[in-house]
């Protein structure tokens, strides 16, 4: 019998620990499929974050390092610098990347490290139970802003793609979302483009993925995807923010 579909070999068979309706699983699969398609097997190292994706080293079927909270771009820098033949990627959430790890992501991008960073933005600290993230929307409720984020009390959310696009070092920056099949396909294209930039040694590449967190948002999976499509997408517009073509 002909095989019409196979799970990518760049994912292990370990059962994912993510909650029902969470889009981490889709993001993992897209990254893994792209790694397979660009032929990265046998010369790739991934870096896992602290947060919901902390166990990513159990899922990506390649050499992996687990970083301290926010430090994945620094760890990836170290790996890439000593093994430039490898594809090196970091997979980080919004608390990890845009809060505690802000210095590391900005400077890895500014240096133009030849790494790819996958940034999962679900506007919340998932693993620790729903605290406000640096990307939490104004008015959005979290366990540390129970009446909704108030700019006066809690500060304002950060747009990472826009921020990083001001730098010279990045060669590719795009924001995508995972709320329907069409956008999942677009996300995969973006991820592939980002890794291709690394393969071609162009510079730092960065994909922000708007993701859902039904558990901590207190929504059904369907409602959560609708929130990504409306509220999140309104504040975090999709698109290419930087592309160096030569």
């Amino acid at each position, binding site marked *: 019998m002909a095989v019409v579909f196979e799970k990518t070999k760049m994912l292990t068979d370990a059962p994912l620990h993510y909650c029902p309706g969470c889009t981490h699983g889709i993001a993992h699969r897209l990254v893994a499929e792209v790694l397979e398609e660009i032929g990265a097997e046998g010369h790739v*190292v991934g870096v896992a974050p602290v947060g919901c994706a902390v166990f990513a080293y159990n899922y990506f079927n390649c050499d992996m390092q687990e970083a301290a909270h926010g*430090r994945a771009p*620094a760890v990836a820098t*170290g*790996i890439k*610098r000593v093994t430039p033949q490898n594809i090196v990627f970091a997979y980080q959430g919004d608390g990890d990347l845009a809060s505690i790890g802000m*210095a*590391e992501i*900005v400077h890895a991008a500014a240096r133009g490290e030849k790494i790819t960073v996958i940034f999962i933005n679900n506007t919340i600290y998932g693993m620790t139970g729903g605290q406000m993230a640096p990307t939490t929307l104004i008015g959005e409720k979290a366990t540390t802003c129970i009446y909704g984020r108030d700019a006066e009390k809690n500060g304002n959310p950060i747009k990472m793609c826009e921020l990083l696009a001001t730098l010279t070092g990045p060669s590719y920056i795009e924001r995508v979302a995972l709320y329907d099949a069409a956008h999942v396909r677009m996300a995969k294209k973006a991820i592939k483009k980002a890794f291709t930039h690394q393969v071609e040694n162009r510079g730092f590449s960065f994909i922000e993925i708007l993701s859902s967190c039904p558990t901590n948002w207190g929504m059904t999976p369907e409602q959560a995807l609708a929130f990504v499509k409306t509220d999140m997408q309104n504040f975090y517009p999709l698109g290419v923010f930087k592309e160096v073509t030569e």
Partner: protein
Amino acid sequence: MKELMKGNEAIAEAAIRGGCRAFFGYPITPQNEIPEYMSWRLFEVGGTFVQAESEVASINMLYGACGAGARAMTSSSSPGISLMQEGISYICCAQVPCVIVNMVRGGPGLGGIQPAQGDYFQATKGGGHGDYHMIVYGPSSVQECVNIMYEAFDVADKYRVPVMILGDGMLGQIMEPVELPPMKDLSNLPKKEWATDGTGKGKDRRIINSLLINPDDLEAHNNYMLTVYEEIAKNETRYEEYMTEDAEIVLTAYGTVARIAKSAVNIMRANGMKVGLIRPITVYPFPNKAYKDLAEKASVKEFVCVELSVGQMIEDVKLATEGKKPVKFFGRNGGNVMSPEDIVAYVTKEA
């Protein structure tokens, strides 16, 4: 042939000759000559250098590079080393061999930029969270810095633990004639099967990790590391004794201070006083048995611990001598350094 070199530069060159091919660091006085030297020298030998955005980033770059199997190092001074403690804890748990140089300056806080030994507890007891140790050397001359650095990567690799060279501002800044060893041949080093060098596939892939969320796994890991530390203590403990055969008063000091204490011993011997010196070269593992043996000698009446701190190593000296003989303390701190005559005056009056 001997060359006249500054301590910091000699350490950097010795590291390269010992196989270092990557350096990650952030500027801080009094160790800046190390990154400055590395920033051009490493590229001459096909290595890499990153001036990181912080010491927090430096130590994590080191984790990445050494996790991928490279011989790499960082250097800093006290406040910067404090910032690295989180990373050092992760590195120790993940068993990633690397080398860290601390050219200690006066503390706490921003402290000062003059020589001090106030980081002894942090270096030897584990300055970050959790149960761990590093191998910590306290060299007392530029030549000893070179010799220790040259072997440091081999020692780190052997046990898969970080090696720290605990110097001080004076050791980094002083110029002395040194004999530099030849470039090590790196082609015959044992393969690091555990390293995430990118070639891992499927079942044979490697994971560098410090998350052991199952309590039994974490306990087993920590207990295993205890056996590694025991092995290190058995094989790597180093110290020097000077004129202790008939000594009644035994001075003890490490690093730069041990040189000053040695001069003090010479002065006191010339005055007819029976004084000797024991100097730990590894401050972790601490040479407990050598101290205990001295403490059990009938001729030894007491110890005087000399430090550039308010008294840190003295706790290890007291533990090692098991209360068999009194241990007195003489120290300066804040960046002030005692002279040999200061030690002689203390011993003459108090001991």
